[in-house]
């Protein structure tokens, strides 16, 4: 009994049902109950099937399984097949996607109740889940790419869900286009892989690569770097990270599902999936680690200065994915996936909880207009709090296990372990700092806008489940993925050494400093920020380190300017000149047709004269 195919099919069916229904039902008379049940139900069922599949998987000895659906095409030796592949890695991913996905769908049935386009929303969401499942289940890089582009599309559609506001459209477009730059690199990577190895089936090509290239080979590095390009785009890492904060324009459940729990971690999945290629290339691994660390630090600083609660979380997501990249780069493969999973739990929780706050405040997202909410919104507050301590990686929360593993593993990283460890630990400190800032400003202090709690059972129930996962998710451990991914003695690091202690202490330092800065106000942070240097730094951090500014000047503005200049098509100009010259010749020659008989005769004489000249010339 093989039900794997059902897992992606169910959300697809859900999408189709909602899509067809949407065509025939106007938005004025929405089928809310139908949409909600189909939308959340299909994902729920998929989660259930995934559970069954997972149990079956372990019952059968956890051996990788293939499930061939059909051969996509067959062109001259290029035979990508639509084939699903199940191993520990894809199982974990599948679980996260369906499980967390279901919870978020459930939450969304409540959250979106008051919005227009209800069925459209769930159609997109279901399509997203389908695409994401194809991404992680496909055994072929082309199928993976199908999912990859599919999630990008859904991300685009959902960011721009409230499409009446043009800003949302711009944000959506930005997300799509920026990730497409990465996708193009990935596409080229596929081409190169196919040219060199002759296959883009994941398992087959990895085996081929292992046989073909020695460690450190240039070709492997090139392909790995191209794939990294794709991963960087999708996972909002440097230098393609700029789209993610703007993507917060989408409804909050979308942010939770796509821009925190699942899609943005696709890059991590991709690198983990093709780890054998990366193992062949230390250069590529160093690149992955460096990208991760840089993103981690930059995003953390940026998060420190944001006013919008969702943007704080967005930058936090970026930085946490930075951790995952760091883990991948330093060889802590399982830890990366582990962090991916725990991050999915607590970041989804944080987003959904903040969503409840935002909903209660009539879509106000500026933290500085909130304040003193902890009494008035106890459930969101509690959820936020649990999410935050997991994010800050306080011991015994899920975040602790995964993050600790990464930070410690980076110390063992061959080129410059202490540097990477130092960065990672410092970032853990920063994480705690901005998390504290967020919590303090949002829930403590003076009361801002008066909240109206619209939470329903489906919303706070979801939060409760996610709270459990955020706290206890760590107990899932590394086991499922450890069988798939090579781990260089990770997890057995010495937790009592000074390094381990420092790693553990970093978040506490952050929390303490945060409390002092933002709650007790023992240190005059406002004064610091008001100084010239402080203000410049703050604004620099606030803008996300100026990436948007630079890209705008270097790419966007010239692109648009030239487009405006060349709207009439310079190439056409050449043809217009030809036409004008022809016309001009007509007018000039037409002048000779003066109608005067003697002028005509004179021309005949000239013709005769020239004829004689030609004859004489022959002498």
């Amino acid at each position, binding site marked *: 009994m093989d039900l794997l195919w059902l897992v992606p099919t169910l959300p697809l069916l859900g999408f189709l049902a909602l899509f067809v229904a949407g065509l025939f039902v106007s938005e004025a008379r929405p089928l809310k109950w139908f949409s909600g049940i189909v939308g959340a139900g299909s994902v729920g069922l998929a989660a259930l099937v995934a559970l069954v599949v997972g149990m079956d998987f372990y019952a059968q000895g956890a051996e990788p399984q293939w499930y061939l659906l059909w051969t996509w095409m067959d062109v001259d030796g290029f035979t990508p097949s639509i084939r699903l592949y199940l191993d520990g890695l894809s199982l974990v991913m599948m679980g996260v996607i369906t499980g967390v996905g279901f919870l978020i769908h459930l939450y969304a049935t409540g959250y979106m109740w008051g919005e227009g386009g209800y069925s459209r929303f769930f159609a997109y969401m279901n399509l997203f889940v389908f695409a994401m499942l194809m991404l992680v289940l496909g055994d072929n890089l082309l199928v993976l790419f199908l999912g990859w582009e599919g999630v990008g599309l859904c991300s685009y559609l959902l960011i721009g869900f409230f499409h009446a506001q043009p800003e949302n459209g711009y944000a959506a477009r930005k997300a799509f286009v920026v990730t497409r730059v990465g996708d193009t690199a990935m596409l080229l990577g596929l081409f190169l892989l196919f040219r060199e190895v002759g296959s883009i089936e994941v398992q087959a090509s990895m085996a081929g690569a292992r046989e073909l290239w020695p460690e450190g080979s240039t070709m492997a590095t090139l392909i790995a770097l191209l794939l990294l390009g794709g991963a960087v785009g999708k996972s909002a890492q440097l230098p393609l990270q700029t789209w993610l904060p703007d993507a917060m324009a989408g409804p909050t459940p979308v942010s939770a599902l796509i821009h925190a729990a699942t899609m943005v971690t696709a890059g991590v999945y991709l690198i983990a999936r093709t780890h054998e290629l990366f193992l062949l290339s230390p250069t590529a691994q160093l690149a992955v680690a460096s990208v991760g660390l840089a993103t981690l630090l930059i995003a953390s600083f940026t998060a420190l200065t944001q006013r919008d609660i969702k943007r704080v979380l967005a930058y936090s997501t970026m930085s946490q994915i930075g951790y995952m990249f760091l883990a991948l780069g330093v060889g802590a493969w399982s830890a990366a996936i582990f962090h991916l999973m725990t991050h999915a739990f607590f970041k989804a929780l944080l987003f959904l909880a903040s969503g409840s706050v935002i909903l209660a405040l009539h879509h106000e997202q500026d933290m500085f207009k909130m304040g003193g909410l902890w009494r008035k919104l106890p459930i969101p507050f509690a959820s936020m709090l649990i999410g935050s301590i997991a994010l800050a990686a306080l011991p015994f929360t899920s975040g602790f296990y995964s993050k600790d593993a990464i930070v410690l593993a980076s110390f063992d990283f061959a080129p410059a372990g202490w540097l990477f460890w130092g960065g990672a630990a410092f970032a853990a400190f920063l994480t705690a700092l901005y998390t504290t800032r967020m919590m303090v400003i949002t829930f403590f202090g003076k009361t801002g806008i008066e909240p109206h709690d619209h939470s329903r059972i489906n919303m706070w129930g979801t939060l409760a489940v996610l709270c459990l996962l955020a706290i206890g998710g760590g107990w899932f451990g590394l086991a499922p993925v450890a069988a798939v991914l090579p781990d260089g003695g990770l997890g057995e690091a010495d937790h009592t050494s000074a390094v381990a202690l420092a790693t553990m202490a970093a978040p506490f330092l952050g929390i303490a400093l945060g409390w002092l800065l933002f709650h007790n106000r023992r240190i005059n942070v406002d004064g610091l920020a008001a100084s010239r240097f402080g203000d410049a730094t703050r604004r620099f951090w606030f803008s996300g380190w100026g990436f948007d500014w630079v890209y705008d000047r270097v790419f966007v503005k010239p692109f648009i300017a030239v487009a405006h200049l060349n709207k009439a098509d310079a190439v056409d100009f050449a043809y217009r000149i030809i036409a004008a010259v022809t016309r001009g010749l*007509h007018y000039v020659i037409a002048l000779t047709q003066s109608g005067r008989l003697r002028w005509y005769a004179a021309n005949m004489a000239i013709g005769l004269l020239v004829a004689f000249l030609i004859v004489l010339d022959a002498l």
Partner: protein
Amino acid sequence: MTGADLQALAPHLVLIGGTLALLLAISFVRSHVLALAVTLATLVATLFALPASNAAGARVIDGLLAIDAYANFFNALFVMAAIASALLGYRYLERRITLAHREEFYVLLLTATLGAMAMASATHFAAFVLGLEVLSISLYAMIAYPEEGQAPLEAALKYLVLSGVASTTQLFGMALAYAATGSMAFEAAFSAGSLLAVAGQAMILAGVAFKLSLVPFHMWTPDVYQGAPAPVTGFVATVSKGAVVALLLRYVVETGALGAAPLVLGVVIIAVVSMVVGNLLALLQDNLKRILAYSSIAHIGYLLIAVVLAASISGAPMALETGMVYLAGYFLMTLAAFGVMTVLSSEAGGEDAERLEAYEGLFWQRPLLAATLSAAALSLAGIPLTIGFIAKFYLFAAGAEGELWTLVWALVIGSAIGVYYYLRIIFTMTKTPAAEDVGEAREAAPAATERAGAWEAAAVVVALGAGIVVFGIYPTPIIDIARAAAQAFGG
């Protein structure tokens, strides 16, 4: 002169007899219908005499006229064009010429046809000159035929004087050639070694270039086309051009005059310039007659590809074939275009329907006429489905056979420019006239005039249009005849 010679000359004799009969008929009874009937009878009889003439076998009579399948192919074209012109002209004369002045037109038409037929057969300077003059003299009078208006007179005068200059130039050239070679028969009238002969040939070719309206001897063309009454313009554009082409090809093949390098160079230059200038002149013209005049300049320029090819011995059959097929197509499309113009001119008073505006909305009021004019325009542009394409295809083929790539390039460029103004004609016809937007009621009005229109002329026009399309799709009959004639040429 033997009996077989007489048999070979049968078409000419019939035509002369018919002309005299017509003259007699006119002097007894002045009846327009009768004149038309006699004319048509004569022409049809001439047409039927052509096979008999062919049956007598190819021969040269008295060293003056060569009666062969080649000549008879053109004779058939001339006679059919004359029939068409007579039918087209009938209603036109009826409406525009005073009662007592209509019948002479047909005499002139017949003599002009005779002149053209003589040219197609000419193998001697004397026949050349006489044929040309019989044709020209008749045409002067036909162009100036209308009783009112300055334009016809101006056209006739220009034609006469300039043609006189060209004729004398040509005669002088013949005299020089004769002085150099001692012969006036084509086959011996040229020797490449004598500069005097070459100069004489240059003058003869200049005269021919005038009649063919090639640059720079082309300037009379638009004025004469415009000034002449529409049915006569059609006749001038076809028969007078066709006769000279027929003569020129025979002349070039028999004299080998283009064996002289400077002459070939001159012809190539004239051809290229004519193709380009003709098309450029037509580009933004608003007068349909002038458009067709300028386009004829370009078309004859194209045809010079065949003339150049004719200079080479191996290329001669192909060149003659090309000339025949091309002219057959050219006759059909040109007559169709002027036919449509004649039909419309016969219905309206005032000047001929020559301004392009007169054709606005024709597609919706007179679909058949418009379709015919479209077919003619597309054919002139050389678009497939029409005989014009076959004709142009032949030129390409001739160019390829002679490897005359320069000329073929010029043909491409010229045709490219040409497409523009031919399409403009069609586009004008598809325009919705301003009147139609006012109300549907007015759309019905022109249909009424159609019923009262020149039905016999319209029938001719539609037949010509059908010919353009039918032979455009299935040209084999024409090709076969032309090929046989070309193969038989010169024994």
